[in-house]
């Protein structure tokens, strides 16, 4: 158990850090090496490193299957997957994309590359996600697209958002990067809205080094995305569409395929980590673990906690103390985008719920590097911080 007994044992005050190697909030799962090599052999023997190679095709088929969609298109990253899909789906002649402010730090940049201006909306304080109710007030005559975002834990009300989309005629696109394995009302994430987007970055559930993909049941959209990720080539000698290079290479596809083979086992391990956190945090006052909705299928990847009013340290101070111990906990989506990038759609102070939530949540270490023993030590450390809080406030001298 944690050897921290006195303030001076804390790394911030000169003690040895709790962990020699950082424990992060990234998944960093290592697939089976032999499986990765076996997949690699396929592109190696075909002498094809990229350009819609055999493994990219295989990966796209398997991901479509995983999400229960007819189509999947892979990309070199989730970022460019988002940009290209937003560009395709936005209603022509309109300028705005409705998105939560409490989300991925580059999402406003995604909108910008796609030629749109973000209109930031509120989230539901219970789910931390957008809902039909929070999105509706932001819709106007310039709204080109609704961006639903599944939060870090559990999902947004995708069904309600679909209804809003049907009602208004404005397409719905969902950032589902954190919800690869989840279901909403029993239906697999991936087929909601016009399309959904995922990441294959090493920190995510499926580690493809770097990469991303879009799932959809829309054949026309899938075809357009395939062309746009390959410079818009329609045939080797004709460019029919504006595009770029956003192709996934074969090594990355091999990695993701090996990861897919081990996915069930990974989710099982994530569930064990989550259960350990749940048990260990149960008796700790001031911290609430955001529970997975186990009535649905869950990937259990992220560990999100709320610092309640009776947690005695500020989040900033808590993070400083934890990070010094090589516990790389992170603030949850802070600052929110409307405070970071500005813009007329949501001046500071206008999104009360978002601004309050952005001060309260923490992501705790999870993923491949974190075992049960680590989790107990992390929670023990939090307990110690709680007990010693008077000595740990900023500015308190020893």
């Amino acid at each position, binding site marked *: 158990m944690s050897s921290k007994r006195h303030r001076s044992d804390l790394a911030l005050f000169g003690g040895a850090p709790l962990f020699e190697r950082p424990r992060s909030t990234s998944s960093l799962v290592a697939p089976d090496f032999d499986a990765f090599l076996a997949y690699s052999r396929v592109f190696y023997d075909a002498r094809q490193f990229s350009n819609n190679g055999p493994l990219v095709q295989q990966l796209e088929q398997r991901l479509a299957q995983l999400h229960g969609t007819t189509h999947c298109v892979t990309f070199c990253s989730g970022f460019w997957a988002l940009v290209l899909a937003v560009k395709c789906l936005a209603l022509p002649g309109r300028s705005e994309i409705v998105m939560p402010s409490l989300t991925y730090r580059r999402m406003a940049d995604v909108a910008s590359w796609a030629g749109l201006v973000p209109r930031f909306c509120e989230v539901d304080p219970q789910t931390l996600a957008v809902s039909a109710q929070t999105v509706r007030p932001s819709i106007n005559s310039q709204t080109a697209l609704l961006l639903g975002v599944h939060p870090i834990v559990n999902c947004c009300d995708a069904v309600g958002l679909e209804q809003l989309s049907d009602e208004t005629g404005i397409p719905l696109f969902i950032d589902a990067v954190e919800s690869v394995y989840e279901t909403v009302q029993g239906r697999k994430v991936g087929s909601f809205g016009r399309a959904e987007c995922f990441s294959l970055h090493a920190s995510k559930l499926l580690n493809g080094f770097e990469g991303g993909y879009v799932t959809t049941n829309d054949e026309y959209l899938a075809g357009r995305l395939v062309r746009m990720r390959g410079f*818009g080539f329609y045939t080797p000698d004709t460019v029919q569409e504006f595009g770029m290079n956003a192709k996934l290479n074969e090594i990355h596809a091999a990695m993701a395929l090996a990861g897919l083979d081990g996915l069930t086992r990974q989710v099982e391990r994530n569930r064990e980590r989550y259960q350990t956190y749940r048990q260990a945090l149960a008796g700790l006052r001031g911290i609430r673990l955001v529970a997975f909705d186990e009535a649905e299928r869950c990937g259990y990847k992220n560990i999100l906690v709320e610092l309640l009013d009776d947690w005695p340290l500020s989040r900033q101070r808590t993070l400083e103390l934890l990070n010094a111990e090589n516990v790389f906990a992170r603030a949850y989506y802070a600052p929110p985008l409307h405070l970071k990038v500005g813009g007329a759609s949501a001046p500071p102070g206008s999104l009360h719920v978002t601004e309050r939530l952005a001060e309260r949540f923490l992501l705790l270490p999870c993923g491949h590097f974190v075992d049960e023993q680590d989790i107990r030590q992390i929670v023990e450390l939090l307990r110690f911080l709680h007990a010693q809080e008077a000595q740990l406030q900023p500015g308190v001298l020893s």
Partner: protein
Amino acid sequence: MSAAPLAVLGAAPAFEHPLPVGQLYFPDWSDYVQAMRGIFERQYYTNQGPLVCELESALQERLGVQHVICVANATIGLMMAAEALVLRGRVITPAFSFIATSQSLTWAGAEPLFCDVDPRSHQLDPVRVEQALWQEDVSAVLAVNLWGDVCDYAELARLAAKRGVPLYFDSAHAFGCEVNGRAVGGFGALEVFSFHATKVLSAAEGGCVCTNDDALAARLRNIRSSYGAGPPVPVRRTANGRMSEAQAAIALLSLQGWPAIYERNQALFTAYEVGLQGVAGLRLLHPGAVSRTNYQYVVCEIEAAVFGLDRDELHAVLRAENVLARRYFAPGIHRCMPYREQFPDVSADLPVTEALCSSVLQLPIGQAVDHAAVARVASVIRTAQAHAPTVRTALQRASA
């Protein structure tokens, strides 16, 4: 007279398997396994990892530039470059290039101002650049170093400086080239290389941006996302342009194999020179502005009236033999979407580009090609010429 031994005339193809144009370097399997095992042991997969850092240092040293910023692919590198240079308005660039050159400008919110090229070297024509430079709203020159050769660096630099706009380079074709003994990579405001599998240095997919400008490098790193590499500076918007450890591992192996890759290409190029010597109406391009080329491409110009077949007919002959010759860049960028709608009347200003788009052909070179293959390709070309009328009739019949 019996039919000539050509696949378009019914003979068996000269090659059982397709012979591609790209370089297609592949490391030895054991080297691949070892490199990947290293990544799995370090469990560091991306985000400016140790191999990317090693690659950037190695390239900085090799190219003699202050900053090398590795990227996911060269197109993203060009998009980041246009962002980092804060381009707007119009950017002078050739229409005789790969489509990504102009697409990068459009992504960044600028517009290509198409400029014609030199009929001998195919590089951007400084005389035409000078005329274009004084048009309204020009914010930069994006020159392209084609075919293992380079533009007239000195003249373009002089012109751009006179107009007070930055000059930068799409050097996707020019890794390993030298001008008067100095490595390509350090010219202009920046240069972008491609490490796509078809290039002389391969990262599977990948590329890098090179610059000697500290401020520009800082902006590029911030746009790419760099996890602590370099100081944070404000940029208009960021992106994801990261190169993974797997890509860097392949590039490092490819760099290690560079002397062998270079020698092989040089020998194959020489074999083409010998094999195609004296073929009337076929001009093999010799990179002339570089002191050292990379032999990345074998580029031919076909003068139809003299050769007896036009470029597309010869292309069809070669394809039938399983020789995957390419017609870069047909159609020219100005005839591709969305530019053909944006600039419908520009063709008249690009007579050389128009001519090259219908006469230029690339032949296979690189790691999948050997001397016997070169000899056979040359022999197919000679046979096609010798039987040009018969070939033409057969092709017309087939397309009717």
